[in-house]
């Protein structure tokens, strides 16, 4: 078995009254592609942010296998967030170079890596273009190039194929597998079961802030005694999914009162409607 890279122990994360993650324990091993699968609001993005050290757990710990906090491994981390996070007044290459410089990587090395991966993603001609007019797919690819340019050992990808056409999505999946084959570790968040099945060595199903299953696609089918991953997923997530809630900002009593003052009430559905009117 590969060596453990990241250890998540009994992690809970709260946003105001909402418990986004509850008692999560997970080991991430070097050289594997781990798929985090769940519906919107399940807690995938929160877990990724905890792994990136952007969030601190309310309780429990997220540490490297050597016991150090995750923030200390950011040098080895490549992240593609859900929102891509590109600056529209910069070109694609300037966006990539900015992050590489923050990693302390010389421009020449970052450019060489970017060129190599841009070829794969059919993005080479777009590197000198401002990202303002980019489609969702191009933004996604640029964010991926940016995450790869400094040569990370660990990739955190939040819905990396969202908005991509079929060919581009396939290219991204192939690239992810190639990175794994070269020794990298990829944590891949998605709500597409089919995609997780194609790409991931291991699937972690998250629902309402809890881990409902963790294992290879074959193991999940065996454990749930189902014929397809979709059936397995449904059998594990029968309770109603909650809505997304991440904002930790507390609203003052006055702000709440003022907002409600100008918010119309929902129509009263118990009123009888006179069809003649």
């Amino acid at each position, binding site marked *: 078995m590969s060596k453990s890279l990241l250890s998540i122990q009994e992690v809970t994360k709260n946003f105001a009254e909402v418990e986004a993650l509850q008692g999560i324990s997970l080991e991430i091993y070097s050289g594997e592609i781990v798929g985090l699968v769940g519906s919107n609001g399940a807690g995938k993005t929160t877990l990724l*942010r905890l792994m990136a050290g*952007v969030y601190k757990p309310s309780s429990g710990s997220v540490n490297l296998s050597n016991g150090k906090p995750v923030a200390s491994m950011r040098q080895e981390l490549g992240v593609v967030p859900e929102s891509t*996070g590109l*600056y529209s007044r910069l070109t694609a290459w300037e966006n990539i170079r900015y992050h590489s410089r923050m990693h302390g990587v010389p421009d020449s090395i970052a450019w060489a890596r970017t060129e190599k991966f841009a070829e794969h993603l059919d993005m080479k001609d777009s590197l000198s273009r401002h990202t303002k007019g980019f489609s969702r797919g191009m933004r996604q690819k640029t964010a991926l190039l940016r995450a790869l340019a400094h040569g990370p050992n660990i990739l955190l990808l939040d819905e990396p194929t969202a908005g991509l056409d079929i060919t581009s999505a396939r290219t991204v999946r192939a690239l992810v597998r190639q990175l794994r084959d070269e020794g990298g570790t990829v944590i891949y968040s998605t709500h597409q079961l089919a995609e997780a099945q194609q790409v991931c060595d291991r699937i972690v199903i998250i629902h309402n802030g809890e881990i409902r299953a963790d294992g290879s696609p074959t193991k999940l089918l065996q454990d749930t005694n189902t014929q397809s991953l979709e059936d397995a997923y449904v059998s594990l997530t029968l309770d109603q999914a909650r809505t997304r809630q991440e904002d930790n900002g507390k609203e003052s009593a006055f702000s709440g009162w003022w907002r409600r003052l100008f918010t119309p009430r929902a129509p009263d559905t118990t009123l009888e409607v006179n069809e003649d009117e």
Partner: protein
Amino acid sequence: MSDGSLKRVGAIAKKEIVEFTRDWRTIIAIIVIPLLMFPLLFIMFPVLLESEAAELDALELSIIIQTDALPENLGENISFNGIDFSVELLPNLSSLSVPGNDLERVRNSSTDAVLRLQTNEDVWSYAILHLSTSERSNEARNRILNVLSDWEDSEVRERIEQGGMDVNSTLDPLRWDGEISDADVATSGEQSGMILSLFIPLVLAIWTYSSAIQPSIDMTAGERERGTLEALLCLPCTRMELLLGKWLAVATITGVGVLLQICGLLFAIGYLASSSFIGVPQLSMISIGLIVLSIMLFAIMVVAFELALAMRSHSVKEAGSILAPALMLILFPALFTQVINLDGIEGFWFAIPVVNILLALRELLMNRVITEHVLIWAVSSVIYASLAAYYASRQFNREDIVTSLS
């Protein structure tokens, strides 16, 4: 701070400035407007005033003179000033200022004014009925007053001569000897410093705050709204480095804006206004150094405060609605500071936030370096700047700033 840390702060600041300058609207707002605002005002305002004055001079006015006896030379002078007039008998009123039946005539502009003139042996009484909201009527009133003033002057001289007295010594028994300006022991440099101290601190304070609003919001709440902050927070840089980089960028943009505005103002005063109005202030090297220090401390405090408020906000709109009215926190102390008398001023004034730096600038522009005052404003400003920086760092360390609102 390590070399890597400095490089990261530099990279953040550089990226922010590059991104900011690529929007032409911000260049106009931060560079072009501050540079041209005062020169344009100084050029256009006098031109506008001159053209308005010429227009008024060219007006042909008509008035009614109500009198029981019109001096001949007075009537000639009125005609000479571009006023047509007709003469009527004085109505019977309790005082000449009561409009009586002439009220409507002036109000509906059938005449521009009514001059009432009454003689009572050696004394003349007069009143001018006019409509103060009408430019024509005001102009008529002003021309009549000028003519009356000249006529009164000649009457006074004539009467003094008739009394056998010398006109000049009677009218002007006390005179200043020599040039008034020669008697002022302040040097021209000191006088310039005094004049500059009346508006440079005000411009500096208001423009520093207002020109930092837009970049502060764009680099904090703007990033949050556009969802670019999350990727940035995953990079190997600390939140403090992020704050420093952004602070440096906002301070640079603001500094350039303020500097250009002051250059534009000084150019306008030096070359476009009457050139003798102001010169170069006479400042020692210590004063110049302390001016730079005070501006830096002020900029640290203001920019950190604005970054903190903007980072607290959930959106660009919210940040704008907080930062714009907060300008009052600078504007009121700045206006208040202008009227404080610096002679014998108590030390505590130099410990009040915002007021301290503006008073310090006023003193220093007059080349007054008072050790006690310098110590008070320097120490208090360092404390306020540190508090603002600490508050900003707390906002940058908030976990919820990662949440994108887009």
